[in-house]
């Protein structure tokens, strides 16, 4: 495996627990300890109630595609072999949305509303990225 050339999260003080949880293949999201609202990306203040106390809750890993795009233009050498690739906004069961990729199927086949499940891609020793694959026909 060659050197990983794509951009990586920089892991700052606010979001380190997120990336560490992904590294452990058990993604946890920040939840306000006062009003209970999940938020993403991680931040030090609850945008709903302005409380600063937070807890980190493991997610169910279930979500749905809110937007699906197919990136056809390569923005640099690191992406040349990937185009066309999928970029999606995933709405998690916990109510937050995140940018990710739906993998394991042709990018054109990912549609808004599709059920997806969380998987991890171990891209470096330090970083595992949360990605999604189609949930198939197992949705309730």
């Amino acid at each position, binding site marked *: 495996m060659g050197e990983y050339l794509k951009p990586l999260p920089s892991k700052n003080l606010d979001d380190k627990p997120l990336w560490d949880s992904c590294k452990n293949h058990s993604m946890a999201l920040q939840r306000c300890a006062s009003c209970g609202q999940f938020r993403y990306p991680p931040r030090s203040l609850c*945008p709903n109630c302005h409380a600063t106390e937070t807890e980190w809750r493991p997610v169910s890993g279930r979500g749905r595609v809110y937007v699906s795009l197919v990136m056809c233009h390569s923005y640099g050498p690191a992406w040349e072999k990937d185009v066309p690739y999928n970029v999606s906004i995933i709405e998690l069961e916990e109510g937050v*949305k995140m940018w990710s990729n739906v993998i394991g199927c042709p990018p054109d086949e990912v549609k808004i509303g599709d059920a997806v499940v969380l998987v991890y891609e171990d891209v470096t020793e330090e970083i595992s990225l949360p990605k999604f694959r189609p949930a198939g026909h197992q949705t309730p």
Partner: protein
Amino acid sequence: MNPKGACTIVGVGETAVGKLPEMTTLGVQLEAIGRAVKDAGLGPKDIDGLLAIQPSNDPQRSYALTVAQAAGIHPSYATDLAIGGATPVAMVAHAVMAIVTGLCSTVVCVLGHKQATGRLEPRHGRLRDGNEDFEEPFGLLGAPAVHACVAARHMHEFGTKSEQFAAVAVAMRRHASLNANATMRKPITIQDVLESRWVVKPFHLLDCCLVSDGAGAVVVTSADRAHDFPKPPVYIWGFGEGHIAGPLQSSSLTTLGGKQASEMAYRMAGVRPKDMDFAQIYDCFTAIVMVTLEDYGFCAKGEGGPWVENGRIEIGGDLPVNTHGGLLSQGHIEGMLHITEAVKQLRGHSVEPERQVNDAKLGIVSGHGASLSAHATLILGREKP
């Protein structure tokens, strides 16, 4: 107080647009300022306010002061604004606020950048967006992708077709073909748009704006002095802003900040969408024009697709949009030239006759940016309200 009609735009300046490797980033700003101040019949000593924006290809601190010093302006009010493509429209509103509160009397608003050839300059930089850590690792790169989300949701929620987005690109190109200072002047068809390469589905290349060098500037002053200038004054009737949560946090991607911003501007101006003779709509991508026209009340939410078809937004149609060709075909100066064009349309006899809107009395201008988050609206009129 209601600042309706308190101020006027009395000077506009534009550089050439396209590739300007022979000019520096600071140089394009200065050329636009020089032209705008001259257009107003003024000199540097007459200007006491300056609003600028850090050029995204050459960000540096207190840019407004760098520009002011280079232009021989000694302002009592000067700052950089930074709300992406909504900045030029917001600049005009901020100029009004500074003038009516007595901070200064005559403000130059300037926006220039060298997105096309700026990397050739020995010193250049890149302005960060701030959410890279949650975007770039997944290959979410470039402005087209974030805006393609709006198109994808519009198609999903309302059944909008690629052909309808394409109608926007066709109209902008037709207008650019009538503008001597436009980059892309060869008319195109719906089929040309649909056959252009995919950038990010659902956007084809011709759904996406140009990447340009250039600058524009306007001179704003009190309406009390409106007749002291060589060109007909254009009155600022209303303005508003609306900034929504980002693409992940917003509850909708098909209603953006334009709804709130335009409602505020209509209320201030005491006018309605049907009063507008033309619209200058920020057109970084075709779908944004459609959503903004809906948010501005020209048609109902979701009806933008059929509404923009069949020439309605072309010169001669019900609502000419972007009579200069816009970011899609004239050049991408972050919407500053949407304002200068609106002023010229309202002055009359200032653009090629083929693209003059007949008897233009009122026009609306939109600014949009910051990854879908920022929006500003401006309503301009030929007469004093």
